């Protein structure tokens, strides 16, 4: 009998109460939820040309060709674009057009509306490149990252033939790579260059959105330019049609 009692005493309750632990966890989680942010901000690269007073207005005028689109950002989130078919038409306000933001507005203009260099070709090439890159096994992706970026640069320059059937054409890619290094690039589609001219009353949001649109539309050549007297006159003339008289010699 005595022996049985002894063995009963040894039986201990091994259950641990976890409630305080859970309480503490709750506190910690609350702390982390309140003091941290999950979304990391994104960075958009922007390189402005260094200030160069030697650049003459003649050089600036060289950019005025049929391959240039000028985008004016104005107050109240409005956006206008100026696009000419022939070089001679430059300065005529009737080529100014009001558009909207987003895919049916300015993106559609850049993508399809331009007669000589619609960016749709480039965007399609980029989609194919993306498909190729995303189809790669994940262990190869990091190694191919520089190739991807270089290929994207080529597409932006107009070498759309480096991709076909959702594959990167390695032979063509290498050939273009060499051409670019030797500065004798050939065989590319015409590309658009864009002058972005934000008026003083446009907002920073407009600027970022349009820069973003440049990335989406695969435009390699774009510049943020200051609005000049001429631009203001052009906008004025567009707003009040009829007041425009082509200046002699223009």
């Amino acid at each position, binding site marked *: 009998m005595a022996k049985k009692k002894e063995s009963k005493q040894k039986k201990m309750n091994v259950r641990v109460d976890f409630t305080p632990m859970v309480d503490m*966890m709750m506190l910690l989680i609350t702390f982390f939820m309140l003091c941290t942010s999950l979304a990391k901000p994104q960075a958009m*690269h922007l*390189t*402005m040309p260094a*200030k160069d007073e030697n650049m003459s207005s003649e050089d600036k005028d060289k950019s005025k060709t049929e391959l240039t689109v000028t985008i004016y950002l104005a107050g109240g989130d409005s956006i206008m674009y100026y696009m000419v078919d022939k070089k001679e038409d430059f300065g005529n306000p009737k080529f100014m057009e009001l558009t909207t933001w987003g895919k049916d507005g300015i993106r559609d203009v850049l993508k399809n509306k331009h007669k000589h260099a619609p960016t749709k070709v480039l965007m399609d090439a980029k989609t194919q490149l993306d498909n190729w890159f995303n189809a790669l096994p994940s262990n190869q992706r990091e190694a191919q990252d520089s190739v991807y970026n270089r290929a994207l640069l080529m597409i932006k320059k107009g070498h759309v033939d480096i991709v076909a059937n959702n594959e990167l054409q390695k032979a063509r890619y290498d050939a273009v790579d060499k051409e670019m290094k030797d500065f004798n690039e050939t065989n590319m589609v015409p590309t658009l260059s864009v002058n972005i001219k934000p*008026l*003083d009353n446009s*907002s920073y949001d407009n600027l970022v959105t349009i820069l973003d649109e440049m990335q989406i539309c695969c435009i390699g050549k774009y510049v943020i330019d200051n609005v000049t007297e001429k631009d203001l006159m052009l906008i004025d003339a567009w707003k009040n049609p009829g007041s425009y008289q082509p200046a002699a010699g223009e």
Partner: protein
Amino acid sequence: MGKIKIKKNDVWIDMTPMSDVMVLLLTFFMLSANFVKNEVVKVVTPASQTMAKVPTSATLDITIDPEGRVLLATDKTVTLEKALKTMMTERDAQLSAEQQKEFLSETQLGIPMKNYAEYLGKSHEERVKLLKATGIPTDSIQTRDDKMSEFQLWVKALKNGYKEWYNDLDDVEKGSVANKLEICIKADQKTPYSSVKKVIAELQDINESRYKLVTQYKKVED
């Protein structure tokens, strides 16, 4: 006598699974955490589809609020300390050792140099109010030969401060840090372009032409 036997329920709840879940959640939050900086002037940045992340260290944040006021911040205290020394001689402002210490504990700087001594003597609430209403002057100082503005002086001093610190490192350490401060422009959605233009023009004047525009992620609509 019919005795009603009330069954004594065991009220012990097993907390182990609960604790397991909690640990998982906690681990998730700890790993994905990036702490919110306690900035006085906060801005709502515009959205873009860019995937690149803002660098986590060696940044020089230029905040431009909707009214066009400019504030600076950097994550490197050493840099700030060196820059403060330069600025004190440049702008002929004196801060006592205690005030300098106080200065370094501030997260953002947005007060004209000559007012800093007065500003640091104020209470926290008053400082917040002042910081929200002042900003670093961006107009050029006419008495200077190079016509630089206080904002330009600050950017230059911070850049040089970082370079000095970086050059003092040995080669092993140099490999693990960025070799220069990265300029991040953080402007509010509603900031008028004219204010942004002014800041960028001033940066171009001191030969700073590469920036990162801080944005939030947004999916492309197609």
